[in-house]
């Protein structure tokens, strides 16, 4: 059941979701993004794609984990989990319990998910686009967005399940290394908050409901749509999706309170954690940069060479290919509304941990000091520019890109100019950007489970 496939290369999932893969589109493939703001204040971004009779919608709100109160870490995540646990009765609409709700989705052949990240709370709908069917999917999604029941008894069960899953996860080396790393990199910043049994115990359904009411309003919605619909259809369906939320004048939609920034590190941290496992887990890093940072392209291209480019990165060459020390070694940035971490990660036999750390640090220090060679820069651009079409060749990937533009307030021609922006980057730009952002002498190093 598990272990049914072994791959040549591990794909560190974080790298895919953040930074590098979040932006896309070639001049050649230029896809017109239609954008408008509804009377409610909801911002809509549409790419029509009529090849397949299906539709994807993503609605993002500024209600991710960064807005969790420290003593109630996990609140946003609890909210996303609970939003599918049943619908409240409304005039003309009967209550549905969690099973009736999931049956209703299954009967439509549609998929509706709610997820919470560090920054965003995201609702995602995938439905076939036949008009009668789509109307039913939209109506059900609108109820789930607008009228979750937040049942108390279900929350008590979910809380127990999450706590048990956390305890289980805390027996795994990767989890423990990650927690030690985030604590040292983020300090008290919400990006570093860890959900525990204690923080979950403090979360009530009233907290969830209040948090939801504060953040999930039509005026705050960023709605991205890709699929077999016209602009007029999209405008109507977005209106319908948000219609069951409390409506108020868009002009009175007040800005949410600012969240503090991640603090830079003043000194290096070296944490060695004893653990019995077949491999030691190594994480090296520091706060990185915000998505709005002008160095974004230089850091994207540079990290391809350092540790992002699959088999061809410096870290893979030195740690895996030349020395056989690891199956997976990588580096990535995770830019968000705040400076998400820069991370180098690897796992190796316990007795090789010190050697692997040494090699990784040497590779990093040299890259930060010198930047890429001309050949490396060319290789990075060949892959990133040449492979642009691969970033937008499905509705699912397009949706990711449109939502990225919407969320980060990027220009509508962002995808059209992406390759040109990338082509402009020089080795000097990369060296300068890396030395601005990374201080190898002040990084966090976590080594869990090292042996003699």
């Amino acid at each position, binding site marked *: 059941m598990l272990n049914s496939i072994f791959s*040549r290369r591990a794909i560190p999932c974080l790298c895919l979701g953040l930074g590098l893969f979040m932006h896309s589109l070639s001049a050649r493939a230029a896809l017109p993004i239609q954008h408008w703001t509804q009377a409610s204040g909801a911002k809509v971004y549409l790419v029509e794609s009529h090849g397949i009779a299906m539709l994807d919608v993503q609605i993002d709100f500024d209600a991710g984990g960064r807005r969790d109160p420290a003593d109630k870490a996990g609140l946003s995540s609890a909210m996303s989990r609970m939003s599918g646990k049943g619908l409240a009765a409304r005039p003309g609409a009967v209550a549905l319990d969690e099973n009736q709700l999931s049956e209703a989705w299954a009967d439509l052949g549609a998929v509706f998910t709610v997820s919470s990240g560090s920054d965003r709370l995201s609702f995602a709908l995938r439905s076939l686009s036949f008009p009668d069917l789509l109307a039913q999917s939209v109506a059900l999604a609108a109820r789930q967005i607008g009228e979750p029941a937040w049942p108390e008894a279900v929350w008590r069960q979910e809380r127990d399940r999450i706590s048990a899953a956390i305890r289980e996860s805390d027996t795994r080396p990767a989890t423990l290394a990650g927690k030690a790393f985030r604590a040292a990199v983020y300090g008290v910043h919400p990006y570093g908050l860890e959900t525990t049994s204690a923080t979950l115990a403090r979360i009530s359904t009233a907290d969830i409901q209040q948090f939801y009411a504060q953040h999930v309003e039509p005026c705050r919605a960023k709605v991205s749509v890709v699929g077999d619909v016209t602009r007029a259809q999209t405008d109507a369906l977005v209106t319908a999706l948000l219609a069951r939320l409390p409506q108020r004048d868009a002009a009175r939609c007040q800005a949410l309170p600012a969240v503090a920034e991640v603090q830079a590190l003043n000194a290096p941290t070296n944490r060695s954690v004893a653990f019995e496992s077949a491999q030691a887990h190594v994480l090296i890093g520091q706060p990185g940069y915000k998505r709005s940072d002008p160095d974004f392209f230089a850091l994207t291209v540079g990290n391809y060479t350092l540790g992002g480019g699959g088999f061809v990165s410096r870290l893979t060459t030195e740690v895996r290919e030349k020395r056989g020390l690891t199956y997976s070694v990588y580096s990535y940035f995770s830019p968000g509304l705040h400076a998400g971490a820069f991370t180098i990660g690897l796992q190796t*036999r316990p007795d090789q941990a010190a050697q692997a750390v040494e090699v990784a640090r040497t590779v990093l220090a040299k890259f930060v000091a010198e930047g890429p060679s001309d050949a490396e820069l060319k290789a990075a651009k060949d892959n990133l520019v040449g492979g642009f079409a691969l970033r937008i060749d499905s509705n699912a990937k397009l949706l990711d890109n449109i939502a990225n533009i919407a969320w980060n307030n990027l220009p509508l021609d962002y995808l059209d100019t992406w390759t040109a922006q990338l082509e402009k980057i020089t080795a000097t730009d990369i060296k300068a950007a890396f030395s601005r952002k990374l201080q190898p002498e002040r990084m966090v190093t976590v080594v869990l489970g090292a042996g003699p």
Partner: protein
Amino acid sequence: MFSLFLCPRLAGARLVKKAVALLGAWCLVASGASAQSPAPGMQVQQFTLANGLTLIVKPDRRAPTVAHMLWVRVGSMDEVDGSSGVAHALEHMMFKGTPTLKPGEFSRRIAALGGRDNAFTSRDATAYHQQIPAERLEEVMQLEADRFANTQWDDEEFKREIEVVKEERRLRTEDAPRSQLYEYAYAVAFTAAPYRRPIVGWMSDLDAMTSADLRSFYRQWYVPGNAAVVIAGDVDVAQVRAWAEKYYGRIPAGLIPARKPRTEPAQNGLRQIEHKATASQAYVSLMFKVPQLDVSALKDASTPASAASRDALALTVLAAVLDGYSGARLDRALTQGADRVADSAGAYNGLFGRGPQVFFLDGVPAEGKTPSQVLAALRKQIDRIAREGVSQGELQRVKTQWVAAETYKLDAIFSQARELGSNWLNGYPLNANARVVAQLRTITAQEVQSVAARYFGDEQLTLATLVPQPPDPNRKPRLPAAASRH
């Protein structure tokens, strides 16, 4: 590999849309959708080159990209004792160069073309794949053909790479208690069938593996008649065929080794294992041996499926009724309510494959509950269906989901290529997926009830339990075996 059903529909996207629309979107009746024929030039086509290599091409013009896969019909099931892990280790070495390509150069070239590449090994197959801009396809075909025929490496490369493979085993099996549990469970469930060996290989087999073992396996199995090239995306079929003749066609034909059947003897009684590992939650897995879909079920609508194939299909519907959507029977009965026994529960049926198939049930006990309570609760749900059957509503629901999934799968060309390759691997026709969905839609509530009554006794069961042990922060890290310290 775990996929609930076969390849996506093979018709062009626009036609599928039309086909489904004709069926009134919802009440989908059997075989209607599969009768539609795709637009000229957009059908999936299959060719056999003179040297025996199979070429499968599926045009899809939605985006200027292509998925290129090379499938070899050899996986861990083709290994023998003492050499477990050879197929997978060879897959790693296939990136180490040819007479005209330095080690690692293959991936560098693909990257320079704007592409992404990787490979995987399963029990049944080894596959190499690239996703590339469409205009780079010819160069990729040239590179892959060269690699298929001419891979070579020196022994130093092998010594480094086998250490990488051991790290992969440590990461994915030794430090992953449930994976480790399944490794042992397969070893107990199967006696003669080669599925009993782990894909990655036992550690001592990796320690003892040599370059020569891999070269011999490579020469033996990597022959054109044992391979298929599958291409999906923005391509012209005639052009792709010409390139395939040019690059793959010149590889000499070879003999495909005889395959020994190694048929699993009938199991006549409960097999049971426990595995203790660092964890906080217990875990219980039930593996029932079941029949699989045979190719006769897929040939054409007029050939009736065998009784075994009908059972395999009914077992797949049963798994979906139990666990096909959140709030399905297992969720509802085991994971909800004040006295729930489990934190999670699941069901899955292996519908087809090169080796014997298994129906899985599994569960994680809730706090204060035991694996035997979860075991009893899982079996109670099967018993209940055996006694009472399933409702028409449940049946319709899981069928609706499969039909919708057929359309959603068209969104990604890579998954289309992967599923075409899987069809070829199992000797199924190219439209097997449409046929499977059509067949699944004909499964009745009575058939589901009948398989629930017939396949879930102790006779065919392997029961595996993970017994959690608290982490001991004071214990010293494990030292590697002496053999791996050189």
